[in-house]
């Protein structure tokens, strides 16, 4: 492979991996810290994308729409936690799977009622709608690089929040022993509501950021749901660092899989997952 093309493919892989990280980070938070298997995570991604579509129509500025969308997503997340999720913490995973699967159906139907079944596009934010030439016939969209930068910033921010702040300490403690944290006078219910809302907001943010380069269409959440679970499982459940490493590995594996072994491109990611889980069943950064 030509070295320039090789480097461009690495860039493609890293860029895809960072976007995967953003989607999966919310899932690893909710799954790892709250112990909730949230199948509706992809729906929040989809809601984010549709919010980006509607809000950019209401207000021309993409970044204003993004901020408003995050606020709405946090509100949806907090409301859902209060309405349904909080009744499931002590229950078996099967109940969580059933409930969140039900949420997928509800959100799909709501999406159909509110937005219809058409495919929509969101314009790339003004000022970023140009491409940087890489070779004589190939360019790279600037906005894709901006997404990568935002994803990196969020990765760093989350790591700092969980490892270095008082809130992060409470979240980590709550993940280990719920009752103990509660008896120390910390409102664990509120804490969980916050974590869930944050997880939903991260998924919606990923959907909003991806909307201009992707498109907005029914069922788009289902496509990211499975790959997000793969990221979380490979990285180690609940590990933000693990999710980042796993997402990058998957991004690169997917990219080079398509180029080098197109016959089995659809399997490469899952082969990687199988290999890693054979080596470390708890995931790369998972605790045993």
């Amino acid at each position, binding site marked *: 492979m*030509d070295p320039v*093309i090789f480097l*461009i*493919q690495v860039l*493609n*892989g890293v*860029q*895809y991996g960072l976007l995967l990280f953003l989607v999966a980070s919310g899932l690893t938070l909710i799954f790892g810290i709250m112990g909730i298997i949230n199948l509706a995570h992809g729906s929040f991604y989809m809601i984010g994308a549709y919010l980006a579509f509607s809000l950019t129509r209401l207000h021309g500025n993409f970044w204003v729409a993004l901020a408003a969308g995050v606020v709405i997503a946090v509100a949806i997340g907090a409301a859902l936690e209060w309405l349904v999720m909080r009744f499931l913490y002590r229950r078996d995973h099967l109940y969580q799977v059933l409930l969140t699967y039900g949420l997928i159906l509800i959100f*799909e*139907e709501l999406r*159909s009622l509110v937005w*219809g*079944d*058409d*495919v*929509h*596009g969101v*314009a*790339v934010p003004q000022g970023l709608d140009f*491409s940087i*030439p890489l*070779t*004589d*016939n*190939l*360019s*790279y*969209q600037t*906005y*894709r690089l901006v997404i990568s930068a935002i994803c990196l910033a969020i990765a760093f921010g989350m790591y700092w929040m969980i490892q270095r702040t008082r809130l992060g300490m409470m979240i980590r403690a709550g993940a280990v022993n719920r009752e103990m944290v509660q008896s120390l006078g910390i409102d664990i219910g509120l804490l969980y509501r916050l974590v869930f809302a944050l997880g939903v907001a991260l998924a919606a943010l990923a959907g909003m950021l991806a909307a201009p*380069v*992707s*498109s*907005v*269409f*029914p*069922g*788009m959440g289902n*496509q990211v749901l499975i790959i997000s679970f793969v990221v979380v499982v490979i990285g180690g459940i609940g590990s933000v660092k693990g999710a980042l490493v796993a997402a990058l590995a998957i991004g690169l594996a*997917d*990219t*080079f899989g*398509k*180029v080098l072994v*197109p016959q089995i*491109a*659809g399997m490469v990611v899952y082969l990687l997952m199988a290999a890693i889980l054979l080596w470390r069943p708890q995931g790369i950064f998972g605790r045993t």
Partner: protein
Amino acid sequence: MSILDSRITRRRFIQSAGGLALAASPFATTHVFAQGAPLRVGLMLPYTGTFASLGNAITNAFKLYVAENGGKLAGRTIEYVVLDDESDPAKAVDNASRLVNRDKVDVLVGTVHSGVQMGMVKVSRESGVLSIIPNAGAGAATGPLCAPNIFRTSFTNWQTIHALGKVMVERGHKTAAWISWKYAAGEEMFGGFKEGYEKAGGKIVKELWLPFPNVEFQALLTEIAAARPSATACFFAGGGAVKFVKDYDAAGLKAKIPLFGNGFLTDGTLQAQGAAAQGVYTTLHYADSLDLERDREFRLNYAKTYKLQPDVYAVQGYDAAQLLHIGLKAVKGDVKATKAMIAAMEGVTIDSPRGKWKMSRSHNPIQDSYLRQVVGEQNKYVSVAWKALEDPARGCRMA
């Protein structure tokens, strides 16, 4: 769909209540045809999921044609039994059997998804019920699995893209890269394109495939740039098509390596594709701004009735109703006279909004393939790319 279910349930109740009385009557077993008794049309189409808008367009146009004829075809009032097939192949056989055996439809109309269509074809072949396919392009339905009672008013996958190769070579593109999803429809499209392109003297220098419905195109776009073909031909549809056209443009490829495809690349999604799609050439059996009186009339009526612009799917649904009407007229509405009805529908010429087309021996349209170019939010008619293009119907015993 709850309204629908309750309607069917109520009907079932009435049927079972009347069952006792009918049991002693000869009418229950022999099909005595009464002028004016409703004709039951089963519409098995997707009304939820990715293809919902296609299912609705087909239904709207079918009903529009019936309404234009006063709600009756050949003296028979049309009664619809509507079923959402959810584009789920796993439920296809059950759903189609339910319409045929339980709801006793006289005609089965559907569907969009090729996998579901295969299930319906199985039921149609086994039960012998008259069936009209208003979209799904799986070659087998009018190829190896063709049957006297199965008709199609849409296209075969092969047919939508066969003319494209000739068009590309005529425009000086002697080498091309191909990119599509790796699944049945994608492979049938590729077969159609390759045959046409190589016959016209073109050479495919790179074949690129993605697993369906993956939409991460960057890696393969880089491969196209590295392969340096003169043009790219592709098959994508729906949300994936929008993303592909936008990514192709953002990667700076569109100006250097022009993009071609069949019409599904740009149909119904031009608003979402915006500037990225401008100038893209596609082939299909329908186009915007066709200069046909029949088309203008159809578009006006459709827009007036539904406050929506019709698309190629609506045209195919409309023609399904036209075809049924022709069959029914020949037997004065007696749908049980299947042989005579099929004979009337075979070799018929349909005056369609897409232009006149003739039913082939394998029961698939012989139709013009149009070259269209994206201008604004329209797939503007450019020329006839292939006059009266007929699917080879390989493996069909009737052909």
